[in-house]
């Protein structure tokens, strides 16, 4: 194990311990209510970046996979009273299958056409859920989640900790992919699919794998939501705003490394949460739009790319 890997593992354990400690040290559940959104964004941004950042296939429909996770979990809870861990695994499997289906699109379409096709997936799934009475249709679905375990203090704290663990695992997985032969293969096909194929890279298999992993994690991010909010509706589960935020965060932080989406998510979600409380919740989308314009114009490789550029200039 390299020194960097040890430092990462230590950092991950510290984050988990800090989360656990905070749950017991901070009495006000609102912090964990807001913290859930921030951590959820870390998972979403990290998951999206595996396909969009490493492989360069821009998925404009992360909300389809997130929403599929939200509704899979809600369905299992309503139908069988299934425990959260089962719902998370099931959501991951559903997301993986949807991701693979999306992956087959890459056989036919690339670039902007792939991006447009992924938006269609959001609209399709939202329409399907709208028409399923058992899932509440357009009215939405209210469910009372089971009591959380005693060690978790409260329901909000419990789902916060669960999602924090998911976030740590997602980031660890993204980091492993990035540094492995898989990540190198994905980055190669991002640069040139033809050259990658002629270098022996099984581009289709890698794209399918990236779609499956990205889809699974996006859906897993949605699985605990019904436990968090006790109410879901198609409009918020398949929200295009959520999709926009998911794409914006890696672009702000930087798409080439695992740290970019994490930085982007922490930054954007924290600012959004602060703005929601202090100014207006409607300001969020405007802020994301402005941030995207500024970053695409001034720092196309995100904050990490900007830092690297500055470092090179200073050493030049």
């Amino acid at each position: 194990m390299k020194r960097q890997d040890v430092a990462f593992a230590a950092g991950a354990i510290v984050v988990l311990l800090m989360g656990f400690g905070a749950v017991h040290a901070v009495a006000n559940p609102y912090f964990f209510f807001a913290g859930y959104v921030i951590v959820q964004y870390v998972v979403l941004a990290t998951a999206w970046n595996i396909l969009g950042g490493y492989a360069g296939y821009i998925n404009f429909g992360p909300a389809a996979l997130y929403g599929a996770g939200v509704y899979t979990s809600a369905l299992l809870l309503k139908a069988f009273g299934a425990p959260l861990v089962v719902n998370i695994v099931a959501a991951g499997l559903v997301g993986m299958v949807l991701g693979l289906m999306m992956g087959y699109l890459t056989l036919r379409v690339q670039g902007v056409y792939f991006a447009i096709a992924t938006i269609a997936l959001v609209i399709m799934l939202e329409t399907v859920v709208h028409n399923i009475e058992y899932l509440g249709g357009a009215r939405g679905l209210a469910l009372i989640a089971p009591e959380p375990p005693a060690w978790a203090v409260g329901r909000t704290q419990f789902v916060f900790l669960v999602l924090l663990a998911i976030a740590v695992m997602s980031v660890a997985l993204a980091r492993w992919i990035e540094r492995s032969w898989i990540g190198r293969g994905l980055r190669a096909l991002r640069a040139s699919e033809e050259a990658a194929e002629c270098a022996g890279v099984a581009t289709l298999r890698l794209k399918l794998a990236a779609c499956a992993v990205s889809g699974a994690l996006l859906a897993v991010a949605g699985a605990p939501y019904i436990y968090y909010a006790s109410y879901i509706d198609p409009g918020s589960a398949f929200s295009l705003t959520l999709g926009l935020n998911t794409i914006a965060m890696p672009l702000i932080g930087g798409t080439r490394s695992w740290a970019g989406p994490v930085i982007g998510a922490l930054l954007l979600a924290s600012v959004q949460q602060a703005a929601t409380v202090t100014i207006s919740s409607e300001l969020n989308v405007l802020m994301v739009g402005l941030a995207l314009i500024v970053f695409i114009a001034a720092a196309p490789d995100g904050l990490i790319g900007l830092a690297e550029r500055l470092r090179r200039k200073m050493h030049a």
Partner: protein
Amino acid sequence: MSEPVLAVRDLTKSFGALRALGPVSFALRGGERLGLIGPNGSGKTTLINCLSGTLRADDGRIWFAGRDVTNVLAFKRARMGLARSFQIPKPFVGMTVLENVLVPLDQIGDGSDHEARAMAILRSVRLDARAGDDAKRLSHLELRKLELARALVGAPKVLIADEAMAGLSEPEIDEILAILQRLSEAGVAVIMVEHIMHAVMRFSQRVICFETGQLIAEGTPQEVAEDPLVQKVYFGEPARH
């Protein structure tokens, strides 16, 4: 004389109503140095793409290393040892020079020390000093060398060098020729697709010439250079006085 390592029979490729290639048949022996010439639009790149598998031929068969690879995907042909470089270099930008060479090494997956092997390959083309740099920062010559370095990874049986010397100065051409020569001496069959005639003539043991998708001449460099049809393709009809 050694067995053909690559053989093509009645290969054709059309784009809509345009017949870009064929029917074409030829063979390449193990370790042979073959020059492939022809004016722009003569079907050279279409042939290379069909051979490497990035284009599927409409008809005909391709054999490589004793196996019919007509329907084998490009990445599998590359892993079998059919390597190519590109006319316009296609570096994996956003990755270091070392990582560019690690990508094909990853696909072999034989458990050996990939980084050490990648560095050895980079040293063989004198790119080791740039190993840590992003590929997008390389000069034109360095990009050409990187293309060759990537192609060398899997110990190829055949290398198709697609205009590997285009845009280079004379000393740089000599440098690339020396690399190709070393490869040939190591037993790699090389197809040199090139417009720089003196390089083709110096390097090749045999030359084939294409025009409008057809093979119009084949022989030693001297024979092909003196072929009236080849001269007509390159220089046109002599003026009548």
